[in-house]
């Protein structure tokens, strides 16, 4: 790689995503405007009108229809893409479940935004988290380069495991902030991502009825072969998700070989080799955590970042390994399972429960509705946890960072 010059663009996260979609030869795009997602599909509509992207762009009248169009187009064998945020994602909720249940390799960007009410167009991750149980793969990106690269990887993953992939990245913080991004060349994308070969297709010469009413128990088809009931289909779906880390890691590795960078597969770390204290988050917050870690390392604190890249399937095994030597993990969630705690924090605790690895886990709620998270807030929180650890004092089950109440 050393001597070769790379073309670096200074672009927003939304443009980084759109460029990737173009490179992936997506054939059908359907989307509806919502802040802060809109500029992804504005860019795509421009590519289509300019003729530099050979795709059908369907200007639907709602997010519900956006994913509805993608589901149908994917079913007849097209590679499809859509993007949304917050209430748009909530509005397409039943389609989100349908896309996964129908096992369609749809890729959707969720440009993370707070859920209303009250209205907020700013960032947190409540939207994606609300969809965590729908059966999609969810990948969180930390910067614009990762967005670009992950969209390309997402198609490969989705088409390998037949599960849709949601590429999640923080609204405004990434979507509207320009950063240096090296666009992958078309040749490399073509080498990485083969032409889409659909696993089911609707064809008049072989009439099939897709996703009809399915009984609880297995039932025989016309030739007497016993076919799955609803529960067996759900089991297979879960199995596909639980097995998908192999495909996710493989895609990231292969991409790395081809392009010269990868993103850690399921989880990643920063200065965490000897870390006793781990600060964990998903998305762009990990970048702020890295700054906090650098500052705390200056003070001699053995602290590192634990970056959660893939939230579903939840990387239970990888996380147990990642926290094995830590005394404390402080988890910073940008969303909340109301009435409980941050979803990442809860899931980490669940991963550790039977592992025999038991660092203290503290949960922090941060940055809801676009509340600015500064590295000093993160340091304060981390130190609070460290103090509690050293004094044996309990911290509250869930602390809120910089809440002025």
């Amino acid at each position, binding site marked *: 790689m050393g001597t070769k010059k790379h073309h670096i663009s200074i672009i927003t996260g939304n443009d980084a995503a759109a460029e990737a979609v173009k490179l992936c030869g997506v*054939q*059908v795009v*359907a989307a509806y405007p919502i802040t802060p997602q809109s500029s992804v599909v504005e860019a795509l509509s421009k590519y289509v009108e300019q003729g530099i992207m050979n*795709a*059908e762009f*369907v*200007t*639907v*009248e*709602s997010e*519900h*229809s*956006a994913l*509805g*169009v*993608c*589901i*149908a*187009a*994917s*079913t*007849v*064998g*097209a590679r*499809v893409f859509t993007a949304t945020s917050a209430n748009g994602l909530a509005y397409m909720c*039943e*389609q989100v479940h*349908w896309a996964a249940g129908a096992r369609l390799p749809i890729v959707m960007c969720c440009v993370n935004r707070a859920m209303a009410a009250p209205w907020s167009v700013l960032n947190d991750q409540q939207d994606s988290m609300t969809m965590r149980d729908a059966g999609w793969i969810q990948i969180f990106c930390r910067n614009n380069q990762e967005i670009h690269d992950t969209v390309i990887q997402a198609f490969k993953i989705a088409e390998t495991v037949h599960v849709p992939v949601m590429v999640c990245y923080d609204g405004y913080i990434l979507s509207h902030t320009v950063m240096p991004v090296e666009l992958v060349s078309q040749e490399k994308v073509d080498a990485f991502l083969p032409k889409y070969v659909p696993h089911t297709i*609707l*064809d*008049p010469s*072989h*009439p*099939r*009825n*897709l*996703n*009809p*009413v*399915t*009984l609880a128990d297995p*039932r*025989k*088809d*016309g030739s007497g*072969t016993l*076919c*799955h009931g609803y529960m067996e289909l759900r089991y297979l779906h879960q199995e596909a998700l639980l097995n998908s880390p192999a495909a996710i890691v493989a895609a990231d590795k292969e991409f790395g070989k081809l392009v010269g960078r990868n993103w850690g597969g399921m989880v990643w770390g920063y200065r965490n080799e000897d870390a006793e204290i781990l600060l964990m988050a998903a998305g762009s917050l990990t970048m702020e955590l890295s700054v906090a870690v650098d500052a705390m390392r200056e003070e001699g604190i053995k602290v590192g970042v634990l970056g959660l890249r893939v939230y579903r399937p939840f990387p239970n095994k990888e996380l147990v390994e990642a926290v094995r030597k830590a005394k404390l993990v402080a988890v910073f969630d940008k969303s909340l399972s109301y009435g409980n705690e941050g979803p990442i924090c809860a899931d980490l605790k669940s991963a550790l429960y039977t592992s025999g690895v038991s660092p203290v886990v503290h949960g922090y709620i941060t940055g809801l509705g676009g509340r600015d998270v500064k590295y000093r807030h993160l340091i304060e929180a981390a130190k609070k946890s460290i103090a509690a650890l050293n004094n044996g004092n309990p911290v509250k089950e869930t602390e809120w960072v910089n809440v002025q109440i």
Partner: protein
Amino acid sequence: MATKILDLPEEEYMLPGNRACAGCSLGIGFRHILKALGGNCIFTVPASCLTVLGGMYPTSSVKVPWMNVVFPSSAAAASGLVAGLKATGREDITVVAMAGDGGTADIGIQALSGAAERNTNFIYICYDNEAYMNTGTQRSGSTPIGARTTTTPAFGKQQQAKDVPKILEAHGIPYIATSCPSFPTDLYDKVKKAVGIKGTRYMHMCAPCPSGWQFPAKDTVEIGRMAVECGAVVLYEIEDGVFRLTSRSKKLAEQGELQPVREYVSVQGRFKGIEDETIEAMQSWINKRWTECIKRDAENR
């Protein structure tokens, strides 16, 4: 030249032994719709009685490809099929969305309006059994005034039905047609014509329902005929904005008068106990529409 019953194709695409209720008019209509389409089509169907007719996994009662979709999504799914088929070079296949009145007039109207506004190249067929029959006869936007449903149990519906073809006409789409399985050749010819037109084609099929309308299953065809005789259903088509009465409605306009709606109402249990003033309201609604239809038809002759 209008097709005669003898000339209707023998080929069947809907298979016997399906899950539809005995005497369901949807079965009659669907058979002839499929005959007119001739097999080179893909259906998309939301939650509806047609889903039930289509069958349970892993067997299907229909010899055409079929994609089930969520309740509000028929027209969006059709848009996706059209886009996907174009993108994969299979534009010769006719895309058909077929939904009930709830899936069309109520929960599906947003997607339908969007697809029609985009003039998406597909046929949308609403089979109108005038309530949510698959979920147990709840009131829909298409339920006529006075009809008792499980959500208008005592007094019957208080409002007139929504005129969905008229709503679609406001979208300026190239073809709109109404039909009823009691007039199968009229239905067949309209679907045939629709297949040859590009853009959004909207078809509204009155679908008498023995269990929901409460009449004996043997009377399905007769009830549909009575609906047309009294003008509760008017058979017409609108091609590029040109309105024409067709089949029996055309003859009724030429030859004589409509039957009073009272008779049509009296043979259906759903109108049992209906008050005279409700029948009058229904009659005046029918008269007003019929006058308008005759006028529009005459303008185009």
